[in-house]
């Protein structure tokens, strides 16, 4: 077998190792080993590449040595808390490297006509550039080199749009006869670099992890694009893998923050909308899966059971969900409103039957003062007992009754079948609050599904 074949077979092995690595990284038990597997794959790929005939290794080795030392030092010396920004920097370098690879290829080959190669070059350069500067801004925000808050300026939208269209237009012209437009090539690169900055700067520091994750997906795509430029399989495969899994991970992270990706990316723009037509505001419902991500990331959870839990006979699954949350590290309490259910002590009977320890049962007086610190309040088939109208609206028939103020929790998930009112027949403004999410369905079914999500992930 010739050298070329050996190299390619090694590449295949490396790609397979990357697959295993990513898979293993997504489960706590195997994560660390997964990282080593993937690192070993990378080693194989690099060694195989060095086997290419006719490579002048001197400079390469120098660059690698320097890079390796820098990388190790940076990774080792950085403080635990500063790791995310470190990842941003690394990621930016990866994007920059892809850009440089494509540039150098373009510089040498100077393609005359449109074709896949120049298209790939343009894609690599644009994506790589955005990744590079975007990551650097993310780094700066996290490291507080620049303010973490969203930085807004007038007509941001417009400026970005103009820049984007310009870049696109120039690219098209460039692609017509690539070799002839070296200047345009550099101009596009410049615009992309600026775009990277402008796109990230209006995003708040708290959202940076999601942004980095997205940029990570981009840098994978950049690598894949670079693979098309130099016609290299392993770049394409690995880059595509990272590009795809990065997007999935971004989605997962958004869900854990109870945000949409669009909201993260463009949240800084525009004023916050506020409905003013009474309760007829916006009802935001969420899927079981989204609720899972919310709960999975929560450190403190309060369950508020009501008559719906009893009607659905969901007490056993609720307790099970509570146990799963606890073993996931969350603090779990059950807040029982004295009038919940249809007889005094209704919830007590059911939760005792389901073996919820008395110690986890708390009363509204205990919970309301600390409600702001609760990550997620899960209302399970309760309604009147969590109706904020009883607190806020003197005209309400419930006015004056103490409630469990779940609307003050960071997020409130309400599990019930519809928007129908409860026993008292009074509409509930809770369902329209900005931090409320409705999870429609029969309490037992929905909570079972949540339990299933947790078990699946274990």
């Amino acid at each position, binding site marked *: 077998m010739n050298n070329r074949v050996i190299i390619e077979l090694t590449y295949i092995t490396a790609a397979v190792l990357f697959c295993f690595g990513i898979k293993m990284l997504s489960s706590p038990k195997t994560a660390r080993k997964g990282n080593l597997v993937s690192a070993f794959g990378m080693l194989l790929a690099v060694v195989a590449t060095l086997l290419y005939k006719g490579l002048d290794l001197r400079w390469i080795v120098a660059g690698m040595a320097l890079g390796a030392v820098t990388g190790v030092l940076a990774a080792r010396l950085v403080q635990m808390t500063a790791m995310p920004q470190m990842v941003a920097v690394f990621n930016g370098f990866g994007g920059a490297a892809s850009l440089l690879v494509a540039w150098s290829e373009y510089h*040498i080959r100077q393609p005359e006509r449109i074709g896949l190669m120049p298209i790939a070059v343009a894609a690599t350069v644009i994506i790589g550039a955005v990744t590079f500067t975007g990551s650097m801004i993310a780094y700066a925000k996290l490291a507080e080199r620049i303010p973490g808050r969203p930085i807004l300026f007038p007509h941001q939208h417009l400026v970005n749009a103009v820049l984007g269209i310009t870049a696109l237009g120039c690219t098209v012209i460039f692609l017509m006869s690539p070799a002839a437009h070296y200047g345009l090539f550099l101009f596009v690169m410049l615009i992309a670099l600026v775009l990277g900055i402008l796109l990230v700067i209006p995003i708040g520091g708290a959202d940076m992890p999601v942004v980095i994750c997205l940029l990570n997906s981009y840098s994978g795509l950049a690598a894949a694009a670079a693979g098309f430029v130099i016609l290299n399989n392993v770049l394409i495969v690995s880059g595509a893998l990272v590009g795809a899994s990065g997007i999935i991970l971004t989605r997962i992270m958004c869900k854990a923050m109870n945000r949409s990706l669009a909201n993260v990316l463009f949240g800084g723009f525009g004023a916050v909308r506020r409905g003013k037509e009474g309760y007829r505001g916006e009802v935001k419902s969420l899927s079981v899966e989204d609720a899972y991500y919310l709960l*999975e990331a929560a450190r403190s959870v309060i369950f508020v059971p009501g008559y719906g839990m009893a009607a659905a006979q969901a007490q056993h699954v609720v307790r099970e969900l509570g146990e799963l949350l606890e073993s996931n590290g969350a603090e779990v309490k059950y807040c029982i409103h004295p009038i919940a259910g249809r007889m005094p002590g209704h919830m007590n009977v059911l939760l005792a039957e389901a073996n919820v320890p008395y110690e986890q049962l708390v009363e509204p007086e205990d919970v309301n003062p600390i409600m702001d610190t609760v990550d997620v309040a899960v209302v399970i088939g309760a309604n009147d007992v969590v109706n904020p109208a009883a607190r806020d609206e003197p005209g309400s028939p419930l006015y004056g009754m103490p409630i469990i103020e779940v609307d003050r929790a960071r997020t409130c998930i309400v599990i019930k079948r519809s928007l129908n009112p409860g026993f008292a027949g009074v509409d509930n403004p809770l369902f329209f609050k900005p931090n409320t999410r409705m999870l429609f369905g029969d309490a037992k079914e929905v909570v079972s599904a949540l339990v299933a999500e947790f078990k699946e992930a274990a």
Partner: protein
Amino acid sequence: MMVMLLFIFVLAMFLGFELISKVPSQLHTPLMSGSNAISGITIVGAIIAAGRGDTVFTVILGVLAVFLATINVVGGYVVTDRMLGMFRHGGRRK
């Protein structure tokens, strides 16, 4: 040829989507960082670009790319390993 590369690209994307489905929140950052290290695979391209030595300029570009990509790869793996090492002990799962 190009078509075949595209085939490979599509399959790999598909595989990427399938590979991860549910990730506990404490693994979000390590997974991001670990897959970021993989995206440093561009080092392969960088080595080739730098090694062919066609022009001084491309060698400079190439070596710079090698340098940056190496940082990405090496730093990425090391930092991921460090993060995961933390969980082993102080982590909230036993």
